[in-house]
């Protein structure tokens, strides 16, 4: 059976996409797989310099960093997520709207493509037509 180059290309593109998703996922897991401090330990860690960072660096952070009580001290991992349930819900609603908008826009664009192709095949905008009019 002869395999066309286009099909092989699709396989390559799909493979690359899968690789980047899996690769990024595994890297993210690797980053977050270190033991997470418990709440009580977190409080204690906030009060003392973290053992995983060098003391001079910690001291400098304390001396130079602006007073930002909400940001965790360096030496702790940061898990990315919306800070409040309200923002989290807002993001999910936005995603729903985004996909709805994309679907509608794709339908409109498909209609525009068909219209543009028809006009081109009818030579509606060609130079010949303009030269006659």
């Amino acid at each position, binding site marked *: 059976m002869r395999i066309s*180059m*286009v099909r*092989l*290309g699709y396989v*390559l*593109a799909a493979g*690359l*996409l899968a*690789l*980047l*998703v*899996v*690769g*990024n*996922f*595994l*890297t*993210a897991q*690797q*980053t977050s797989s*270190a033991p997470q401090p418990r709440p009580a330990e977190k409080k204690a860690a906030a009060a003392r310099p*973290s053992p*995983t*960072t*060098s003391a001079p*660096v910690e001291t*400098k*952070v304390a001396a*130079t*960093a602006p007073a*930002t009580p*909400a*940001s*965790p001290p*360096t*030496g702790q*991992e*940061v*898990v*990315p*997520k*919306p*800070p409040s349930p309200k*923002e989290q819900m807002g*993001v*999910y609603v936005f*995603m729903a709207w*985004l*996909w709805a908008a*994309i679907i509608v*826009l*794709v339908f409109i*664009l*498909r209609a*525009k*493509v068909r219209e*543009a*192709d028809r006009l*081109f095949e009818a030579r509606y905008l060609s*130079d010949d037509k303009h030269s006659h009019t």
Partner: protein
Amino acid sequence: MNAGQWWTRFRSWLDDRLGWGAVLAFLRQKKVPQTRHTIWAYTGSAILLFFIIQVVTGIILAFYYRPTLEGANSSVARIMNEIPLGWAVRSIHSWSATFMIALVMVHLTSIWILKSYRRPREVTWMSGVLLLICTVAFGFTGYLLPWDDLSLAATKVGTDIPRAIPLVGNFFTKLLRGGEDVSGDTLTRFFGIHICVLPLALLAVLVVHIFLIQRLGMSLPLEAEIKKKPVKEIPFWPNFIFREMILWLFLLGILLSLAVFLPPGLGASADLRAPAPEGIKPEWYFLFLFQTLKIFPAHVLFMSGETLAVLFIMAGGLIFFFYPFLDTKPASAKGKVLTAIAWLFIAYALALSIWSLLD
């Protein structure tokens, strides 16, 4: 005067001053071959889309990022925890970089396999390879900026590789690091390269690349060149652009979905004196090079295995850059051996990347 008349007057006012009507007429006259391989042409504009996203999100991140030993990790933590939607902007920046690199690779691979680099498009190919190098360099320099354990260790390994090059290796490693070892100077250096040097370099090469595509047009597929049969063409504007916009919308949706549901984390602040974590791996696009370095034995005859591996990779890179000058056949020649070499390389890169992931 109604709104329609105002709009027409405003358009003619703009046209008188900017002459955009001439640009539109040029784009309408410009024709794009419509074949079963045209899908690969869409990847070019998609790369541009992700580059624009990178620039916009990068500027927002640069407002809050501090490229110092003390501030790097905490400023990224602040972006993620305190700045409204900062975590999302950082996630979009990270995922968009991944998409951009993947698409550059797919774009270049498609050109390689379709042999679109052949005369007279040699310089277009070379500018494309330079764009790939710039894009990967963006990824490498950007990886250090969060300044966590993983990024520090990866940069230590990455900047140590040039040391294996005979004679000039040490100089290159020092040049990259701004000293003997990775330090605050490396961070500042990488930040400067990431936000200033690389964008300027990429823009300069991009201008040349786009100019050459405009000048030489898109290549025809091999079968059309061989059979000398006429190929169906469509105008660039609006027929081709509308088709591209459909792809952009889908890619934008996928990007935002991944950015929201799989945002990258941030590790603990890097400790310069701490040993490298166990089992560190580079980003996915360096995995096959990383594995290539690993599979070489410690010593091969009179040479160290690492030096040989680095020289092997450099030779491969040079061959890839000057590939159009190795394949000087006319555009209509099939070149089955070269196609087989291209597929072998792709299979090698995929296999080693998967091996490295599972290792």
